């Protein structure tokens, strides 16, 4: 499934790219990362602790960085296996960096997440939601690391009243909350 997240951070593109290519620093922003260790130039071993409600999975695996497109595009692929549930996770995270001209950079990220095995059967809704939450949490952390997230101007500052709702529709409650916190919009969906 694809999880798309676009967010803006108050830092120039080169600095954002440096951050994303600095795996230990970037990894610290990924919720649940444990034991991140360099294996060779572009490859790291890591364990990712993922919590889906009461379920806890520990994916052991590795992360490979593709800096070939930097600073415009940065791609990281990760895969790991959780022994308890016999599940494997694969994530391809790609980020396009676009400079806004005001010194800030828009990060357009697309994460392709596949979970196979028993956790993959647990429910795509749960997996999508968990992946979305992780990317959002990462975005928030990255924003803080890089000097804060630009306030979002596209979103209404508070949910519209009922009177205005009828007839023109509403953005979702969740989207409202998240949008107000740190980002411009998000989309998750099945592949």
């Amino acid at each position, binding site marked *: 499934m694809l999880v798309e997240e676009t967010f803006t951070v108050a830092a120039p593109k080169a600095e954002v790219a440096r951050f994303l290519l600095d795996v230990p620093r970037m990894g610290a922003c990924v919720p649940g990362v444990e034991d991140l260790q360099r294996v060779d130039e572009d490859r790291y071993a890591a364990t990712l602790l993922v919590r889906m*409600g009461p379920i806890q999975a520990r994916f052991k695996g590795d992360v490979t960085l593709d800096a070939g497109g930097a600073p415009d595009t940065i791609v990281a692929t990760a895969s790991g296996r959780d022994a308890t549930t*016999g599940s494997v996770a694969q994530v391809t995270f790609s980020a396009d960096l676009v400079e806004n001209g005001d010194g800030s950079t828009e990060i357009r990220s697309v994460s392709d997440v596949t979970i196979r095995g*028993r956790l993959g059967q647990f429910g795509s*809704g749960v997996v999508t939601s968990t992946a979305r939450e992780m990317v959002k949490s990462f975005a928030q952390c990255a924003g803080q690391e890089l000097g804060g997230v630009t306030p979002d101007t596209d979103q209404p500052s508070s949910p519209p009243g*009922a009177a205005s*709702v009828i007839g023109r*529709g509403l953005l979702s*409650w969740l989207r409202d909350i998240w949008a107000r916190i740190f980002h411009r919009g998000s989309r998750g969906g099945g592949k």
Partner: protein
Amino acid sequence: MIRFVEPRDLQEACAVLADDEWGNKVISGGTALVLMMAQGLIAPSTLVNIGRLQGMDGISRDDARITIGARATHRAIATSPEVMQWLPALADACGRVGNVRVRNVGTLGGNLAEADYAADPPTVLVGLDAVCHVTGPHGARDLPVADLATGFYSTSLGPGEIITAVSVPIGEDRVSAYEKFVSRSSEDRPCVGVFATARYDGSSIEKLRVVVGAAVAVPRLCDDITGSVAGDALEDATIRNMAAAISEAIDPIEDARGSAWYRRKVTAVLVRRAVERVSR
């Protein structure tokens, strides 16, 4: 090897639970917990059984509320004369959870704490302003059911906290209805569940409230949309517009029970049907 602990009282249960938030799990009816253990999704190190603690399964009423012990089964709630008389929509929702075996064993506290989106009672309880009584290592507190679920299978309960009872306000002149829609077998969990309740002042609706559940990660209270709806008789167009607005406002889940498109469609229909049922 897994440990099975029979605490003497609630305080001991909370203390054991708080020791290891992820490894120690509370067990009451066991329906959800044993299922996840059997499926290999969780492997707790300790089970804290509150199934034998006294005084957590009663249903009582005073002038202002009905209080339901967390260990009351769905069956007990569905067939309780008090609940049937004062909170018929809750009795209805609990009577339609799973099958007769699940209703016999599964408890209200367990249902709420699991925070499965495809559930019936939370939708009704959120709409009725129900409050969870929670006990934890640092004492007791009240937590509105509306603030309990925070996402898929996730709640705002802290480490070591246990739901001990749920209180539901009564006494107002209100009419409520729960509409459940299953998209596949009759035995399916809800694809969409809609609760509507109207508070009356004489023959006039003073306040209308709608909650959408099962189509969304956590029950969606639609006061932002229904807040302005009041009056003697609701116009058909008003109800339809409101139903359409609610179906637009939710962020529907996609799963084997239906796509987001479909859940919006069904939500609009169910909101209309539920509201029509509560309009005198």
